[in-house]
């Protein structure tokens, strides 16, 4: 069922069993789990079915620290959320990503890979991925041309990525949701406030507002914030009428530990013979699965480095692609997207790589950043048109990221050398191990994570292992805000898996 909240009488009261705020991959994945059940699900979406610049403007905010994309264009504020722009890269986190690593400050989740494993399997369907197979051998068996560059997998290994079409949640799920009897989607229902009970131990209701000047109240037994990491933190911090530091923020953790993936060209690989590197090749819209080079858990531990992976692009193409931080520079997400894709498409179009493959490839890193309390979201003095203080981002990296990237390419260079396949040359900015600066082309991956991190203790995290805000009985966060560490893979596959797990938890709660 769909209701446009602009058309409801002012000060309507909406009631249901669970209220999900946000209709991106996290919110829709949870909502769809409840279709055809006896529970009334309220799905609140701040925007409409199409892009609306007035609503989008509420995402605008200042950034400091490491240069970042304009906040206004880094997320999408309408039905389907940022899945309207995402690229579909999916791979599960590794077991090591969930563990406490003594060389990575603030690492460790209160859940393990095994806890998420069955939900990863289910998330494959939400994202229109292939079989739940992330071993390289499975894919190599189907295509003999997918040959490894490595001598073995003890130091560097081949980690599979699968590619979603990419699933746009709006066209995929709109009809089902609009036709659903028990999922009540409210568009133009922008959450602006959260009201708790007297001792702030449970949420009583939330307030939604739209630019048509209507304000409504939503009551439910359980509330799920699924507005993505920056918004989730912002909304909790802004809900400071009853809890002066914001909800769930008694220990000053909400908004902290903002994490991105560093996405940065790092090295070049030279082969003695031309090679299409089929195992590592990615053709957008065609490739179903391919590998990136990853570093084994033992080597991460031995060298005390972060988890990161490396992908390949023929050098003649890569040299003509402008860095994302340069092309994704417009406040309007549609224009940024166009600039960004324009640069890639023209480089691919003008490629001179022969059919038999290239002899030279650019090696591109995606790496977790170490959780860092100073990398954070705070509230600005200025408010958006809904009356919510704007979000500011201070993105801060540590020296560990740079040291890790350098070591990763040293290890990759050693392994392809050992295999007698190739040699690797690190880029200038990695050559001096004492140089801790970042080059101007340092980019993120539009992956916002960690602002309401998961931990068993309220002293070290905002949500518990079930994504429930510590100290508040019926308030949950869905999405990558809950990640305690960022791992190397793009976040959506994991955040959908985590959302499905949260949904099961909520079902169990409602049964009791």
């Amino acid at each position, binding site marked *: 069922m769909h209701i446009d909240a602009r058309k409801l009488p002012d000060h309507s009261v909406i009631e249901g069993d669970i209220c999900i705020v946000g209709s991106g991959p996290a919110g829709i994945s949870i909502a769809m789990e409840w279709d055809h059940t006896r529970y009334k699900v309220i799905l609140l979406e701040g925007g409409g079915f199409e892009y609306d610049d007035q609503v989008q403007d509420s995402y605008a905010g200042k950034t400091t620290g490491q240069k970042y994309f304009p906040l206004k264009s880094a997320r999408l504020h309408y039905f389907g959320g940022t899945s309207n722009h995402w690229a579909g890269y999916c791979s599960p986190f590794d077991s090591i990503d969930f563990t406490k690593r003594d060389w990575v400050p603030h690492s460790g989740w209160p859940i393990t890979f095994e806890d998420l494993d069955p939900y990863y399997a289910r998330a494959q369907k939400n994202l229109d991925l292939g079989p739940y197979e992330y071993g390289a051998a499975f894919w190599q068996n189907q295509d003999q041309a997918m040959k490894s560059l490595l001598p073995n997998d003890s130091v560097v290994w081949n980690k599979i990525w699968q590619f979603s079409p990419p699933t746009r949640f709006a066209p995929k799920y709109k009809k089902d949701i609009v036709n659903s009897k028990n999922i009540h989607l409210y568009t133009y229902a922008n959450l602006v406030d959260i009201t708790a009970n007297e001792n702030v131990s449970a949420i009583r209701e939330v307030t939604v507002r739209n630019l048509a000047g209507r304000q409504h109240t939503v009551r439910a037994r359980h509330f799920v914030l699924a507005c993505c990491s920056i918004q989730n933190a912002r909304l909790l911090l802004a809900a400071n009428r009853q809890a002066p530091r914001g909800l769930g923020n008694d220990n000053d953790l909400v908004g902290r530990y903002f994490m991105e993936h560093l996405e940065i060209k790092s*090295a070049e690989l*030279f*082969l*003695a013979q031309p090679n299409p590197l089929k195992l590592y090749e990615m053709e957008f819209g065609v490739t179903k699965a391919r590998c990136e080079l990853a570093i084994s858990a033992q080597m991460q531990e031995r060298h005390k480095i972060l988890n990161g992976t490396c992908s390949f692009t023929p050098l003649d193409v890569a040299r003509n692609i402008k860095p994302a931080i340069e092309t994704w520079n417009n406040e309007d997400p549609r224009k940024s997207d166009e600039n960004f894709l324009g640069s890639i498409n023209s480089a691919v179009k003008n490629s001179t790589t022969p059919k038999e493959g290239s*002899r030279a490839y650019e090696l591109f890193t995606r790496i977790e950043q170490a959780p860092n309390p100073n990398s954070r979201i705070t509230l600005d003095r200025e408010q958006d048109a809904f009356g919510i203080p704007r979000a500011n981002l201070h993105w801060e990296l540590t020296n560990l990221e740079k040291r890790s990237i*350098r070591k990763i*390419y*040293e290890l*990759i*260079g*050693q*392994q392809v*050398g*050992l295999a*007698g396949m*190739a*040699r*690797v*040359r*690190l*880029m*200038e900015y*990695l*050559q001096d191990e004492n140089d801790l600066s970042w080059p101007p082309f340092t980019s993120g991956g539009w992956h916002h994570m960690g602002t309401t991190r998961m931990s068993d203790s309220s002293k070290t995290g905002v949500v518990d292992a079930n994504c429930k805000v510590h100290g508040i009985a019926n308030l949950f966060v869905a999405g990558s805000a809950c990640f305690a560490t960022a791992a190397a893979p793009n976040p959506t596959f994991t955040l959908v898996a985590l959302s499905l797990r949260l949904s099961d938890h909520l079902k169990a709660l409602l049964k009791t």
Partner: protein
Amino acid sequence: MLSVSTAAFITIPFVRCTSRNAPLAKSLSRPLFLSQICDANTLREIGNAYRAKSPDEATENQLVNKILGDQGYKAHFKDENDPRFLAFLDEKIHKDFSTDQTLIIKGWVVSTTEARQCALASLIKP
């Protein structure tokens, strides 16, 4: 990889390199794999940087001795074009990569043997 079956087990007395070893130094100055992907200038740049880092390996003799180690050469290889000699070098480079005997020089991740070969290249006039 070239076959190294014979090269692996020969231990040969140390051979001091003299100017009479110039052809040897020259042939050692061509790292087989690197030469396929780098031009002569790049090899020399790597070599110069290596020598700057390793002042006790500044002369041809020192470098040749370091590369050959306690593996002699003349007693067992016909000349520097002997395929077993190439196999010996190939094996040495392979071993460097498997035992962490690698360096990052001018950004290149190279085996120590390759770096020394480049250092020789940087000393020998083209």
